[in-house]
């Protein structure tokens, strides 16, 4: 254990900054996952592939067409919405008519994910790409020995804005109420006159847009856009969704931030931490599930395995 590092407050704060921005990324990613799960009881394992395609779309728009960041973000969110809608029509809706279980929807999303990633690899190749540095100033701000890059600020700001926007949408708008109704009881909602299929489509569109935002933000932070980029974040995203309690939006955000900080602190302070960080993340996941099988903020439900 490196004692001198431990007592360095600047290092600590820096890691907190890095951890929170990393965590905010996970939070934005997890929001989309949680939305689909909370409303439709579907584990969408194609969320990562969606996210990756959105990042590539952003790259096409910003590097290929030379458009600025807002255009890239918009394009990515639109792409995400379209892809999510496609997923709903191709992979999930056909299963609903048969009344199939969670297993089937998971497998169906896995299939779509494989297809999506393979097509990306075939079309774009495996080289890593980055957004042009013109879209966002890469020079970090320095103050008091700490540094924070514009990308990090943007990510934290974006996650706050998105969470607020999503919260408002779900709680205050009519569509949001309809979504909540479907989440509670699809059959009843239908009987109440809610056009269930349309609301489900809206849910997917929203989740897809969130994936799009996540794609751009990750691309900005890491400068590493590659067809494989979904793999790592997928695992983290799922862990966050579970940690926060399935279907719980605040829990997802909180879980994301916590996970980001834990991961960063593990690398920074644990000897050999960078090798262990995956193991630590999962260990914590196991432990939390052991103690609270419904996640940190999940409701206790009578239904167990």
């Amino acid at each position, binding site marked *: 254990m490196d004692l001198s590092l431990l007592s360095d407050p600047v290092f600590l704060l820096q890691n907190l900054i890095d951890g929170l921005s990393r965590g905010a990324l996970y939070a934005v990613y997890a929001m989309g996952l949680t939305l689909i799960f909370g409303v439709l009881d579907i*584990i969408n394992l194609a969320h990562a592939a969606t996210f990756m395609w959105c990042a590539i779309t952003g790259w096409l728009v910003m590097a290929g067409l030379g458009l600025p960041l807002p255009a890239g973000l918009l394009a990515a969110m639109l792409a995400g919405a379209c892809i999510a809608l496609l997923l709903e029509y191709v992979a999930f809706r056909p299963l609903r008519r048969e009344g199939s279980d969670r297993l089937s929807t998971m497998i169906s999303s896995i299939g779509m994910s494989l297809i999506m990633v393979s097509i990306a690899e*075939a079309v774009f190749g495996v080289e890593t790409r980055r957004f042009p540095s013109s879209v966002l100033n890469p020079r970090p701000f320095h103050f008091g020995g700490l540094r924070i890059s514009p990308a990090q600020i943007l990510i934290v700001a974006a996650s706050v804005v998105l969470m607020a926007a999503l919260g408002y949408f779900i709680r205050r708008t009519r569509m949001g109420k309809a979504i909540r109704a479907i989440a509670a009881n699809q059959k009843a909602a239908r009987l109440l006159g809610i056009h269930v299929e349309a609301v489900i489509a809206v849910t997917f569109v929203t989740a897809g847009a969130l994936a799009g935002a996540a794609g751009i933000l990750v691309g900005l932070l890491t400068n590493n856009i590659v067809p494989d980029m979904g793999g790592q974040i997928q*695992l983290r995203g*799922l862990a966050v969704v579970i940690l926060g309690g399935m279907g719980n939006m605040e829990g997802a955000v909180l879980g994301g931030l916590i996970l980001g900080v834990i991961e960063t602190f593990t690398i920074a302070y644990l000897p050999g931490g960078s090798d262990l960080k995956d193991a630590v993340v999962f*260990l914590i*996941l*196991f432990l939390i599930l052991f103690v609270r099988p419904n996640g940190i903020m999940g409701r206790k439900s009578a239904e167990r395995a």
Partner: protein
Amino acid sequence: MSGRRWLPWAVVLPIVGLDLFICVRNPGDLDRLLINMILALSAFVTLHAKLLSLANAGFMAIGAYASAIISIKLGLPIAVSIPAAVLLCAGVALVIGMPVLKLKDVYLAICTLGFGEMVRVLIILTPDLTGGSTGANLSTGFPYEAMKQTRTWMLGVLLALLAYLFWALSRSRIGRAFRALRENPQAASTMGIDIVAYRRFAFVLSAMIAGVAGAFYAHSVGSLDNGDFKFNRALDILSYAVLGGSGQWFGSILGGGFLTALPILLREVLGASVGFLKNFAQLPNIINGLALLLVVIFLPGGLASVFGAGRKRPGPAAAGPVRELPDPDKATAPSEAPLLVLEDVSRHFGGLEALGKVGFRMQEGLIYGLIGPNGAGKTTLINLVSGLFPPSSGRILWLGREIQQRPAHRIARAGIARTFQNIQLFREMTVLENVIVGRHTHIRTSLLSTLLRLPREGREERSARADALALLERLGLAELAGQRAGNLSYGDQRRVEIARALAMHPRLLLLDEPAAGMNEIETRKLGAFILELKKHGYTLLIVEHHMDLIMKICDEIVVLNFGRKIAQGTPAAVSRDEQVLEAYLGRD
């Protein structure tokens, strides 16, 4: 369906043909084909038990490295190292299975994924043992010649053995228990099937099979590194089983064979042509993905479902003399002491009190009725007694011993059987099979005798079958024995459920609205049947709304309203009780 007899063959022949083609063309592919088929079986086991486990890649890694380390670092022959590796996998599966299997499906999937990643981390962190990230190869002390110990024929033998294992298991009560568990875990548990134990069995078996596949992988490839067991491999393995279908084991073998053979075929057909290869190289992955998607949407039962039920359908019932009803199993002689006692039993759901301080006693050999308006808590009471969930407070005593905390399968074994208000038959199984499941706790054969197909196992199975058939005859359902249970009419399904519960020879039978949906004639027949049961020594508790039935056959009636007992007594007394009348008819 019967017209499409050629369909199974149209599916099987190309797949078998593809696989044979590989064997003949390039022996280098044969090991891979066999290993993948074995891996497919390991995924089948958990999928069959409705566990979405992605741990197979992790267990494969453990099996591979364990066998490599034991055979090379300890210098033991593979005849020792491989079984040792398999046992290690079993041990690890038992340990992590305990917490992990209690989780719901998606949590299970993610935790098993996490397990796989942790195994990889472990491999990298122990370079002295495993070669770390440089892998287990020549430069790290795992010489090729020493590693490459297995031959292709060994894999063939292993696959054949596993096929036999699965065949024997599927025909036994274990297979039947799994099928029941798949369809309806709740109902299965009330028949005495220990869901948790079966799931654990599936998880451990799956781990062992993945482990042996991993060990053979190590010894046939000759070198290992952590990249061999990535997340993608877990997904590949899953896709074999999904394609094959979670219902039949041989489907997974076909699925694994097909998905392994197809990329090889593509390679042979597209060849090494220069321009082509770059664009088509992703094709196998796309096909894998498509296979998963299309199978799940259009052919949910997988390849195996093309073969129909696949299991031997029981033939028409042998016409014979109508047998006597079986007697209930009584471990102890009936006595004056009450059979079942409820003491101050309460049950809350959140803020709602479903049952509040309910208490009564049941004597052996009598028929009790449980009535009350809708929502009075009758089914909750049945659920409590049968062990689906524990009461919030109070005690339930069976033959003097407390059972309120016991799980459903142990209460079933203690001699309490039940039917369900909303009929919980195993719809995909035949009527006869449903009833045979009821004999589960009475068939006493060990795993070993099942595998070796000792004569005893055959005897027990035949006897169980005969018992089941006899029950069906008694209930007038004999012609329907070979029918799929889900196809039956409502009334028939109810009677099958009763037969299934009776197959347990229970000392106490709980019937939840047995006459629902029956007409007058059927209801009267049911009443007569229940009285006969009483003559044979059965004790019954019947929840019903058909007042004439209840009044006619019950010795005593308990009345619930808003979760509380408001009356208890003979039918005559209860029908005159003020509170009962008020509850049913309301105040004027």
